[in-house]
């Protein structure tokens, strides 16, 4: 174990600090004033899309896990926004890098990174949630095109999206995991209807999406026809990592500590209440454990060793932890924690309340807690799979 910084790394840390200092006026409390301009600035300086080749619109640096960690730490310390991390950037881009054609990479990665193209992820269907491979949306051959019909659900940001990466069944007679293709198409294609679904947060974060004979060129398939299950799993791996990101959790814990130090009830600071303080300390230990677990994962990636269980538990633990942090914030706020809509007594623009509700969704999305436990016990502990039901 050696966590000391070489002089080169110490210099790099100073560089990141100087950058954030110089651009302090371009963001506020974790929010960039101009999202697209900020994103361009980050890419140009290598603080976003760092290791993505220049040819595809990235910064083109050699992968260096330590530098990435230094960037993350300094951005958290400065409460600076990390740049765009939507589903396109976090999931589609790494997928294209791994399995996309040269043309697909050239066409989509750059604009996606710069935030010019917004994507949505069309996986889940009303009858295919956890059992995703049973999806029914069908793609019928029509010359060089497919005609796509069916329904997707829970599609985040479909109402804002320019494009969709979508799972469709191209081989109806193949076994369920082998008949799926991963395909890209514009949300403006005729035959697509998006209906917002309002969630408990009061916002329409996701949608139902209906397809009726949507014409999409066969060339838009990523990673080969019938290989969609494999391609989607590549994406899901990235989604799980993103959903349990301990750095984001640490930033939230820091905000909670600030809240508890500044809020008072009956003249007493919340942090001075031993019960609340004890809950805070319990969560802090968990946040540290996840943070250091993340450092183990970085090292494992660096040395090419498998991360094993340490990697499999991230989504389950990380999402639960986020929810508990929000829950403590609500309890600490007490009656103020039940306010939600704008008003003189609302704190942090209602972010804690929104997190408390929305984080519940993240425990479900990207593979539910139960599905994560199946993965941990089967792949991590080598326990038997559920016997499949006898064929009727």
């Amino acid at each position: 174990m050696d966590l000391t910084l070489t002089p080169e790394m110490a210099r790099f840390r100073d560089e990141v600090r100087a950058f954030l200092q110089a651009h302090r006026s371009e963001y506020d409390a974790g929010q960039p004033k101009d999202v697209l301009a900020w994103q361009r600035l980050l890419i140009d300086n290598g603080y976003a899309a760092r290791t993505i080749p220049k040819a595809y619109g990235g910064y083109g640096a050699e992968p260096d896990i330590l530098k990435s960690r230094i960037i993350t730490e300094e951005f958290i310390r400065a409460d600076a926004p990390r740049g765009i991390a939507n589903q396109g950037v976090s999931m589609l881009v790494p997928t294209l890098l791994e399995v996309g054609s040269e043309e697909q990479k050239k066409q989509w990665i750059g604009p996606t990174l710069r935030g010019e193209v917004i994507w949505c992820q069309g996986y889940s269907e009303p009858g295919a949630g956890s059992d995703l491979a049973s999806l029914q949306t069908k793609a019928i051959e029509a010359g060089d095109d497919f005609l796509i019909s069916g329904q997707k659900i829970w599609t985040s940001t479909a109402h804002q999206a320019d494009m969709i990466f979508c799972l469709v069944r191209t081989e109806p007679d193949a076994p369920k995991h082998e008949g799926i293709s991963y395909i890209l198409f514009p949300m403006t294609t005729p035959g697509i209807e998006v209906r917002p679904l309002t969630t408990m947060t009061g916002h329409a974060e996701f949608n139902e999406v209906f397809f009726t004979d949507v014409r999409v060129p066969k060339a838009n398939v990523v990673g080969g026809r019938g290989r969609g299950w494999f391609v989607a799993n590549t994406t899901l791996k990235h989604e799980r990592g993103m959903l349990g990101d301990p750095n984001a959790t640490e930033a939230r814990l820091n905000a909670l500590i600030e809240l508890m130090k500044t809020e008072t009830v009956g003249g007493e600071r919340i942090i001075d209440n031993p019960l609340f303080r004890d809950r805070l300390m319990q969560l802090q230990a968990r946040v540290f454990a996840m943070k250091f677990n993340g450092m183990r994962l970085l090292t494992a990636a660096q040395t090419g060793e498998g991360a094993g269980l340490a990697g499999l538990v991230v989504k389950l633990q990380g999402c639960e932890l986020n929810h508990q942090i929000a829950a403590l914030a609500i309890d600490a706020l007490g009656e103020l924690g039940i306010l939600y809509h704008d008003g003189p007594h609302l704190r942090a623009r209602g972010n804690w309340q929104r997190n408390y509700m929305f984080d519940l969704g993240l425990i479900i999305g990207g593979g539910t807690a139960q599905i994560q436990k199946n993965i941990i016990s089967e792949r991590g502990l080598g326990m038997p799979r559920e016997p499949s039901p006898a064929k009727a």
Partner: protein
Amino acid sequence: MRFALSEDQKMLQASVGKAIADLAPLDRVRRYAEGKETIAADIWAGLSDLGLPGLMIPEAHGGLGLGLLEAAVAAEALGGAVAPTPFLGSAVLAPLALTLGGTPEQQARWLPKLASGEATAGVCIAEAVAGARDGAGVVAKDGRLEGFCLFGLDAQDADLLVVADRDGKLWLAERPAETAVMSSIDETRRLSEVIFAGTPAEPLASNEALTRLRDAAWVVLAAEMLGAGQTMLEKAVAYAKERKQFGRVIGSFQAVKHLCAEMAAELEPARALVWYAAYAFDHAPEEASLMAAHAKAHLSEIGRFVARTSTEVHGGIGMTDLLGLHYWFKRLGQNRQLLGGPEKVREYAARVQGLAA
């Protein structure tokens, strides 16, 4: 940056694990716990071949001169076997006290003997760290100790004692008037009541020594809990793959798999926390106390969860004496309370960050 055990550390872990499995298999642990054997000196002697007693003792005094991270790695292996050894008191805390606060003469007199395993040392700091119970406490007058300490670690049969007095000052005492075993739920680690009646003692010089001792003790107790918890998880998984009910192994039932997954999900990140706490003790002094406190409290919490859950996975047999699973359950229970339960330790974690008065 490399956040992983080094090859040497992995080798230490494996060799301690292997040695302790040979020296203290469950039936040996059982005989000791049942009082059928009062001394486990042969186990300690066996571990001396690996240099374990001198792990943290400087090479100049015959030890290996390693750090707390290595001690934590060893403690994890020892906790995994619920082995009766004086590791915490004799190999970690007393050597630390001597290296931090001992005079050259005291060091030369004791460290080589402790390193070879020829002498053992006990530590009485419970009152100074976690508060006095039942009127316990020691006062020093004219180089002599009066009073008594509770929950002495490895103090029984020890040749040397490190004792904190009522003011938190540390003393070296050679021959206590009397030590009495405090029978506890976990008889694999005996705790002692140590009574002083004009016992000659020499003061240790360092004022920080007690803080360092406490931090080291918290990390080592946490590492033991990690090892004990890991064993309980492994035993549960192995049992679930064998035991059949309803015509299939119980490990194929999702309810059982999920219990095991939850144990693993708690233990895995906790491993990183223990490593970091030990690393901070050795290399990042400004974080050492906070991380030690968090490691101790967090491992106490998840240790209790794993102890309960593994027992539940075993069904009725987990409750019996037959498998001996309860020895791990009890070690986890003991470590949770020793030198401060989780609430107490978390209050301290808040204090070192300036979040509590």
